[in-house]
């Protein structure tokens, strides 16, 4: 029995920051890096299942990132996960969620887990794509934004609740193996103990390349590309008042201004 949890090291910004020279991201000197907040919950959910099963389950943490992202991996291992996998190739530097999902799909094929958990989204980019793309690539059942889960190792199905719009929740049963993206608040994530942190340093972490997974750089070409990242100028809001005609005319002016007409 094995649960695979995909995690991401995310970047939080300092109060003041500068953009990278190519204008496509923030200069990494201004990042504070940490394990994605959502992933604390997905890791905890896996650990709770493992513990409820009398530890008769393996929790494997996988991330895609350079060696700096070992911190995120070790954070998850310190909480009690069994081992880690880190995949990296410089060609992944601009990878989007779909490209990452292609890499993760190969890891899933290799590991053959009974269940895959991802965070509902990453707190830095927030695309909420990776988990569902992974399920699509695998052809596995999936559920996004899971806020409650009943599942024991060996079960053929899991019963879960997921959050919908307008405060609605949906109860569903899903065939396993499946990919579930886990929502904040599903549990109370634990803190690592000092013992956990010390033990995490000894736990095995496989470092894999694209070659190891049988992938070429071409096969993980991102589906999207960031052209420019910028901080929008503040103070652009304007409340348009007056009669309908006046409002329409002011709106037309603004549109012309913005389009440089």
């Amino acid at each position, binding site marked *: 029995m094995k649960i695979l949890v995909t995690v991401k090291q995310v970047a939080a910004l*300092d109060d003041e920051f500068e953009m990278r020279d190519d204008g496509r991201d923030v200069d990494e000197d201004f990042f504070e890096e940490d394990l994605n907040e959502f992933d604390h919950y997905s890791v905890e959910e896996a650990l709770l299942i493992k513990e409820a099963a009398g530890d008769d389950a393996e929790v494997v943490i996988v991330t895609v990132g350079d060696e700096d992202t070992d911190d995120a991996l070790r954070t998850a291992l310190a909480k009690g996960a069994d081992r880690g996998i880190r995949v990296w190739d410089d060609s992944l530097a601009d990878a989007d969620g779909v490209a990452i999902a292609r890499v993760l799909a190969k890891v899933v094929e290799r590991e053959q887990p009974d269940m895959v958990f991802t965070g509902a989204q990453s707190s830095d980019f927030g695309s909420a794509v990776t988990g569902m793309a992974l399920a699509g690539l695998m052809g596995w059942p999936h559920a996004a934004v899971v806020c409650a889960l009943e599942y024991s190792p060996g079960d053929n199905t899991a019963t879960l609740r997921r959050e919908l719009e307008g405060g609605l929740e949906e109860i569903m049963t899903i065939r396993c193996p499946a990919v579930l993206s886990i929502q904040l608040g599903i549990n109370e994530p634990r*803190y*690592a*103990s*000092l*013992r956990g*942190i*010390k033990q995490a340093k000894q736990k095995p972490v496989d470092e894999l390349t694209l070659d190891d997974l049988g992938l070429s750089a071409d096969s993980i070409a991102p589906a999207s590309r960031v052209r420019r990242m910028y901080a929008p100028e503040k103070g652009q809001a304007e409340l348009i008042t007056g009669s309908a005609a006046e409002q329409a005319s002011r709106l037309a002016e603004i549109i012309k201004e913005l389009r440089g007409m």
Partner: protein
Amino acid sequence: MASKRPEKYDILFEPIKIGPKTMRNRFHQSPHCIGAGTDRPGFQAAHRAVKAEGGWGAINTEYCSIHPESDDTMRVSARIWDAGDVRNLRAMTDAVHEYDCLAGIELWYGGGHAPNMETRHTARGPSQFVSEFETLTYCHEMDEADIKQVQQYYVDAAIRSRDAGFDFVNIYGGHTYGPLQWLSPYYNRRTDGYGGSVENRGRFWVEVLEKVKKAVGDDLAIASRFAIDTLIGPASVEVEEDGIKLIKMADDLVDVWDINVGDIAQWGEDAGPSRYYRQGHQIPWQRFVKQNSKKPVLGVGRFTDPEKMAEVIRNGELDIISAARPSISDPFLPQKIEEGRLDDIRTCIGCNVCISRWEIGGPPMICTQNATAGEEYRRGWHPERFEKAQSDDTILVVGAGPAGSEAARVLMERGYVTHLVDSAEKIGGHLNDITTLPGLGEWGYHRDYREVQLDKLVKKQRDSQVSLGAKRLTADDVLEYGAEKVIIATGSSWNTDGVNALTHDVVPGINASRPDQVTPEQIFRGEKEIGKRVVILNADTYFMAPSLAEMLSGKGHEVTVISGVELGHYMHFTLEYPNMRRRLIEMNINVIGDAWASRVEEGRIEYYDIWAEGSRREYRGPGKLPRDENRSHQWLEFDTLVLTTGRHSDDGLYRELMARKDEWAKNDIKGVYVIGDAWAPKLMADSTFDGHRIAREIEDDEPQLPLPYKREVSVWGTAFQPDGEHRQEWRS
């Protein structure tokens, strides 16, 4: 990322000329007591020099007596009576001059407020009066020869100040000391050339300034501290009357004015506690001086925020920011502003616990925020620098209140991998409740500073961690946590059974599990409904009972306090007492003092006068009291009984871990220690000290107990006076 200070603060860093001297910026450490005086020159030098290093442009002594006729024993002043004092004060000026900082001395002649309990002199004043501040202290009315003699004391002291290396002398007329007693008709009832008109009442002050200026004015800057309004109306000095008149009379004789308000008997109106006064609270009086003077003006007002400091200078209300308490709380305040590190400022909380030690008379100053204050010389603690960790031991701190958060902060500063764990969602422990009490919001700066610093430290040191909202750790959890050293900082709670300082016993019928009886914690948690008629049974000597009385009265409850100890006794020392009493009266809170409870029944409490047991004491045999039976008991009804009878340590976790010492080795635990209220309930300043101290001494053989500190006491075999004789010399 290092950031630069905002340009709007540049005004705080403009140099300013003061007579023959130039101050490098606008940060002036106001004269303030620390308990060092002249007798502990190492303490004096190190404490002041740390501030010079931290960027203050000028540093002062505390009040410094000019002559044995002005002796404030047991309170500790500095003294500049003779060559021995000059030598000892030289340690301070030399240390301060290591940095680009001026050294000032506040020349104090206490007059009618000086008790002279050590020197046994008789102080002289403008008229004979009995001090409203000091017990049993009368002064002798000066004649003209006396006046010339006392004025010469100032001159001689100023010359000795120059010998000691000071850059400026401050003729101290604040807090109704020295020349202010002459100006104020409250003290000065003379009818000669020194009494009557403001010109006559100001003459003593003007003459002192003339003589001091003549003697040392070419070399030293002359400052004068002036309480511009003594806050008792026309009976004494009012700012727009005698205040600005004296400024005009003496303006040519000073190089800088040092302006405050108030008197000595209620000097909490000057050193305003945050409970009652915000920063800049004296500006409505101070601002008149710049309108009537050609000289730079400096003034205090617990300025903690550079925004406010720059504002009062831009507004033309002051030229220089003077600060005592903010400089104690953060000796590096100017440097942090200069470097734009505003979130590193350890902001003064305005609790006045620093002042309390001077008021108590004798003990060295302590600070709630800055545990290193007063420990610079004797323990070698620098406020901003820490000794590197001396081992790879990891440390678990249980409890993130004032003690635990300070311990974790200092351990992380030293480089120890440290985990701080608390079941609460926020750092601060019981402080998070206290800050909700009337007027105590600013005490939250203590928590905020540690919260910000810990947040930065755990980012720098990834294996360290602050675990908030965590499940309460059991002894098993702690044993298995994986830390080599464990510090327990689990705080204290209010007694639920009435155990108290008077009887050391429970009060029958007191039981905080009942719906109509509450501890402070139960009030903060809002877990019980509070009835209309509230009785607070108190045997605590600090703020909790008066604060709860004020809070509950403000919510419409009818409050009576039965107190077995003087209500808010410690608030005399923090200068909060006078306004606390005024507030109780304003809010119709009934205080039954010198009373304790014999029993409680549903809806009523029986109390008695603690002195009603007869003054005759005689032996009456075993099992019998040596005094008469107390028959003063009476009943009082309540809807809710609030219990501030005493506190006890929450040390269950510590005790269990100590009992399971045989399990330490197999869990790689080297030591378990207890600090703060969990060790014994104490002032927040002392809890913070505990946390700081154990973090500084964690690798020692017995970290539970403090290391010896460097003592400064008289050394037998050496005379204090350079040409003196230490051996006994009888006059016979």
